[in-house]
């Protein structure tokens, strides 16, 4: 059995699955239930200075696919709306009852050194294993000068991170917002401020849907809506990219990464680890299915590791990072073509119409005398774009087969058709 123990920012965890700072970690009762279910740690719902914030109703909006499954949700919720002392008392209690589990205190405050330091000291005293700085909340809090309004300014990321480093001895996780142009500016700032790790991503600015009866964005609050923070499976691609950027950037590659964003299954978890994550945080998936999903995350990840012969998380951490390169490093001589397996084809014609209407007219459609519909790739026209293979409903019916052309690796900078190269 593979060992799922992991260490991030010096903190040991029985498994890499933590609940992200959000409603599932807002209370003693939820956190205890999460630990009973097997979660390795929690990042407590973000704490702020009293008086507590007040939330609106309603709070969540949905983005569903055609089958009605949730692709993503957004929320216009704020940080914990319970008094600070109540949260701290509950943290102290869980700390005593669950000594082997990780509790990270998430916090945010006004941009005042004393505010950040005092709050950090209070949270540290409650017995947390580390502190996470919420610099990402994209609604409500940023309008008060907190959350993403800090996370969007590298100098402020650096400053708040340093304040918390100075105030406590605990590992510091700086949680980044994706609502910026280049995640490296934020990650580098966190590093300069002394962060042990970065947590990312927080939610993405969004309007997930519009209520066409009320004519307002969802969720509707008394006839009006606001932009909210988007999360769930739909944001995973954004998070994966940002994690990869940080992991392969020379300046930030030593930062530990607590990956967040759309993690629903062990496979998502493995992908993040392969791109360089040291640990994982989950919010939406737990909100949609309950804490029990961690069972399969643990089981599936360890089965995957057994199958591949990885004994620990570090064995495969970052293995895909080295294969993540800039476009300029791709081999222009590599070629692949689609090949349809006539035996498994069910003759739906989806590949044909997709290629015909929107790509390269590289699939032919013939009807045989007995009515059989035959779809064949016209090799000369196929550019290997993947479209047909992606939309074919039959698994492995369309294969993308590399072309043996015996041509050497050739990247764009050296390509004869590159005008810069040609000018040389």
């Amino acid at each position, binding site marked *: 059995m593979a060992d799922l123990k992991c260490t991030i920012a010096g903190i040991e965890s029985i498994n890499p699955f933590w609940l992200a700072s959000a409603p599932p970690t807002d209370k003693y009762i939820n956190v205890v239930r999460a630990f009973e279910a097997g979660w390795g740690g929690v990042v407590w719902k973000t704490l702020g200075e009293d008086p507590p914030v007040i939330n609106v109703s309603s709070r969540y909006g949905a983005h569903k696919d055609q*089958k009605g499954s949730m692709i993503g949700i957004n929320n216009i919720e704020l940080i914990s709306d319970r008094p600070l002392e109540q949260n701290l008392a509950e943290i102290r209690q869980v700390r005593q009852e669950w000594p082997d589990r990780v509790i990270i205190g998430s916090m945010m405050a006004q941009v005042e050194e004393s505010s950040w330091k005092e709050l950090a000291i209070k949270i540290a005293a409650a017995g947390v294993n580390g502190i996470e700085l919420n610099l990402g909340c994209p609604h409500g809090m940023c309008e008060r000068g907190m959350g993403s309004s800090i996370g969007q300014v590298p100098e402020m990321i650096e400053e708040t991170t340093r304040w918390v480093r100075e105030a406590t001895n605990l590992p510091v996780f700086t949680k980044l917002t994706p609502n910026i142009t280049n995640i490296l500016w934020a990650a580098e700032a966190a590093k300069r401020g002394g962060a042990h790790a970065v947590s990312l991503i927080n939610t993405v600015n969004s309007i997930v849907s519009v209520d066409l009866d009320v004519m307002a964005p969802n969720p509707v609050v008394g006839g009006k809506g606001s932009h909210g923070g988007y999360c769930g499976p739909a944001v995973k691609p954004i998070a994966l990219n940002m994690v990869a950027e940080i992991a392969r950037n020379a300046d930030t590659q030593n930062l530990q990464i607590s990956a967040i964003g759309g993690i629903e299954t062990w496979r998502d978890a493995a992908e993040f680890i392969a791109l360089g994550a040291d640990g994982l945080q989950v919010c939406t998936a737990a909100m949609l299915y309950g804490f029990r999903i961690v069972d399969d995350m643990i089981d599936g990840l360890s089965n995957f590791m057994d199958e591949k012969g990885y004994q620990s998380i570090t064995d495969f951490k970052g293995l895909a990072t080295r294969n993540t390169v800039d476009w300029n490093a791709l081999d222009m001589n590599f070629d692949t073509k689609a090949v349809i397996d006539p035996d498994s084809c*069910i003759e*739906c014609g*989806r590949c*044909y119409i997709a290629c015909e209407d929107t790509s390269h007219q590289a699939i032919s*459609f013939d009807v045989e005398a007995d009515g059989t519909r035959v779809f064949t790739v016209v090799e000369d026209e196929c550019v290997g774009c993947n479209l047909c293979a992606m939309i074919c409903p039959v698994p492995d019916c369309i294969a993308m087969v590399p072309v043996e052309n015996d041509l050497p690796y050739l990247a764009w900078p050296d390509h004869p058709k590159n005008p810069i190269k040609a000018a040389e």
Partner: protein
Amino acid sequence: MTTHARKVAQTPAKTDHNCRLTFDDLHKPLNGLTARTAASHCLYCYEAPCIQACPTSIDIPTFIHQIGTGNIDGAARTILSENIMGGTCARACPTEVLCEQACVHNTDHSDPVEIGLLQRYATDHLMDQNGPHPFLRAPESGRHIAVVGAGPAGLSCAHRAALLGHQVTVYEARPKAGGLNEYGLAAYKMINDFAAREVDFLLGVGGIDIRYGQALGRDITLDHLQAQYDAVFLGVGLGATNALGLDGEDIPGVQDAIQFIENIRQADDPATVPLGNDILVIGGGNTAIDAAVQAKKLGAKRVTLAYRRGADQMGATDFEVDLARKHDVHVMLWTKPKALIGTDKLTAVTLEGTRLEKGKLVGTSETFDLPCDHLLKAIGQKLSETTLSGLDIASGKLVSSNFYQTSRSGVFAGGDCIKSGEDLTVQAVEDGKQAALAINLWLASAQETSHG
């Protein structure tokens, strides 16, 4: 408790003949959740095989996609634009040999998309709103068409002709419209007066006038119609039934299955329909199955279905034969009736085994008597030729070679009375639609010649 009350309402038809019987839907209609699941199973195939397999060529992937996007009214219009009786067809079509048989999912060993049920979901949704008719008529053409028979063929022709701007007068021998939709389809396919509701819906297009109790050959003649109207369409179906050719076919207890079904369909309380204890149904088509299953649902003690050939030759689909078996109908193959026993009342039937001899069906001379007090004949229907004298008939059907035109110029025909495809509602609807288009062309060319 409310939940309990709901459960009771959903229980299938009671089989106690003494209780008021309600026929329940054969297939449970889809709801929002199951419709979405069923719709999401469709691959939205390109030039889909299911379209090709539907006699009316409904754009099935498009309407299913529309259901998927929540555009249910749009889905209904996609269906109804090709098949104005999409509601009945969704209930009565043997989808297992039509659209669903062609679905590509049959090749991947999963179940085909439930096209019939989805079609019903969409059309019911539109009809339940009782809104305005979904299609607008073209400007009045000044042409007037006579339609004989208000069955699916006649009504479909009338609707399409009305859409094209023509005035239509329908002559119907019976007191109600709908043809076999109203009188012949099994009660469990057409619950809650659906046939009548659909006729009302269809007539909502305007420009159609129905005259009831008017029979061609009795009250009107073709000459009259041709003198009065610009074109005539015949959708008279198959009015006569085949006889067994045995002595005693007129003794009480011997009945046409169609009559039996009609009695059920027309009864206020089906429990009052005369029903024997030992029922024998003769035939292997869907009429035989429908009669046998309904007899069983009404509470008949024993129902036997005797068919003179093997399972492969049966007209009924496998699904229908299974349905009969599930209703505890005893199916006897290679058996034919030889004599009817009883003087003033049927008491038994002598049956004889059959087999094929050099391709010909012959009796085996092995006979036995089956106690029977109610025999239902379902051995096929035929054209009542007398009403149609003057028109060419071949193999028992009206000749309609020239774009639905009969041997008489300007007289068109469709549905069961011609040989177009299987004798099915959906085929009759298609015939009516195509005949209206043909009439339209014919009228246009006639106008050209007269003016040119």
